[in-house]
């Protein structure tokens, strides 16, 4: 096993202020950034605040920015850095900081609550739902989301413009709207809820300029932009900007 000393700069502070502090810390073969942060806690900075849980890239807790890029600390191998470089770790920069590497991500839970839930179909009791695999394939990709909120953090709509947080749900929750709108049994439309229209009017889909940062940072590899946001934009166009689709829907009344 080889061991070396790595240079780290880690942001320490809270809502009143803080700074990047330098540390030199031992690194062993096969370790990830979260291992190093834990070693720092054990040896040099016992009060360093960090949120983590599974250490397997499945709980979405240890989101941070490593060398300026939003990433999961537990999934960032130390072997991807050269031994000479100084590795910078900061909290997510789109959300209010609590302390050190911990941010207040409650914005995301507020946005989650704004998306109306699945509407059960009439005449079917739970347990009687039957769906074909081809009809749920698309939604299942979105269900891989671990809610690490890296996409929310990197999205410039809210990252660079705090004032847009009220109007914009962010990629994760627009993806949730897309998932429900593609759900073969969702009966929202029958109940008067037009998810295509509300995606734009209530959840701020128009703010997205499809620059794909959400897709770039997703640790689950979900094609958020191509498979959720752009299809949702096209569905909104069906409702709001395409008179031919509107006319077709009035004439045929066929449910797709």
């Amino acid at each position, binding site marked *: 096993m080889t061991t070396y000393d790595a240079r780290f700069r880690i*942001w320490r*502070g809270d*809502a009143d*202020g*803080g*700074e990047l502090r330098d540390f030199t810390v031992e690194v062993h073969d096969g370790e990830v950034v979260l291992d190093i942060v834990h070693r720092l806690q054990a040896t040099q900075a016992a009060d360093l605040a960090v949120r983590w849980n599974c250490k397997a890239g499945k709980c979405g807790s240890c989101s941070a*920015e490593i*060398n*300026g*890029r*939003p990433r999961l600390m537990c999934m960032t191998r130390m072997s991807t850095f050269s031994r000479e470089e100084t590795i*910078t770790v*900061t*909290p997510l*920069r*789109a*959300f*209010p*900081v609590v302390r050190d590497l911990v*941010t207040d991500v409650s914005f995301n839970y507020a946005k989650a609550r704004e998306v109306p839930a699945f509407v059960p179909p009439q005449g079917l009791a739970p347990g009687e739902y039957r769906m*074909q695999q*081809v*009809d749920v394939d698309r939604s299942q990709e979105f269900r891989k989301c671990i809610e690490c909120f890296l996409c929310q*953090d*990197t999205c*410039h*709509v809210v*990252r*660079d*413009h*705090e*004032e847009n947080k009220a109007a914009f749900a962010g990629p994760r929750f627009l993806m949730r709207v897309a998932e429900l*709108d*593609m*759900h*073969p049994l969702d009966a929202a439309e029958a109940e008067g809820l037009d998810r295509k229209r509300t995606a734009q009017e209530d959840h701020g889909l*128009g*703010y*997205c*300029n*499809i*620059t*794909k*940062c959400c897709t*770039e*940072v997703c640790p689950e590899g979900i094609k958020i932009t*191509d498979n959720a946001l*752009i*299809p949702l*934009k*096209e*569905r*909104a*166009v*069906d409702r*709001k*900007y*395409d008179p031919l689709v509107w006319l077709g829907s009035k004439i045929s009344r066929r*449910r*797709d």
Partner: protein
Amino acid sequence: MATGTRPPRPRQLTGVHDTSRAAIAARHLRTDRWWLAPATTAAGLLAFIVYSTWRAFANADYYAAPYVSPFYSPCLAENCVPMKGGPNWEIFGSWWGLSPALLILIFPLGFRLTCYYYRKAYYRGFWASPPACAVAEPHGSYTGETRFPLILQNAHRYFFYLALPVAGILTYDTVLTFRDSTYAWGHMGLGTLIFLVNIVLIWAYTLSCHSCRHVIGGRLRHFSKHPVRYRLWGWVGRLNARHMQLAWASLISVALCDFYVYLLASGAITDPRIF
């Protein structure tokens, strides 16, 4: 009244410098060459804009039998060069005095300008919104595609519909390249190969469009009820995954195609004949 004892009111900060967020002065902490991709994209797009503007306004050297430049096809004004069996459709008559390329280029321009890939490319490359992921953009406010003029990006599917006949006409032009300079059929030159590659890329780019993917099948909720459209959607989806590469490849091929015709028409080279 005491003055000078209260600290000056801090400037209204937003974005990554919002007072609620971690106090980090830098706009970003990325250490990789994040600027390379937007800079390359901007340079590539700028090169094409300069080249195509020159060629579109030149109104010359766009036909060398049997090849017609894709920038001038179909030729819709009376001031076009007569092209035997070629795309001379003088529906604009004689009153149009400018380059006939301007009449037709508006359609592929609109298609590419509203394309989901090119939007990403120029928002990042030219408008720095954002310049790269997790690199703070320089703009004080942002409304995205919620207002005029960017709300017009929602018209992309109409440009897709218009791009289909344009691609069809370029296919017709490619068929015409199986002639020689005396219009006899059954011949091929180097230009024929260039036109063939171009038309394949043009169709691949057009059909890989996100709007096409939606219209073909993406808008359906139950794929199981539409097996043919589901299969087509799958094919378009596979092409769509390469949309960026196809956007660049077809952009370069259409410029090369035009440049080849320019070289022939201006007499700089002669077309090597294969048979």
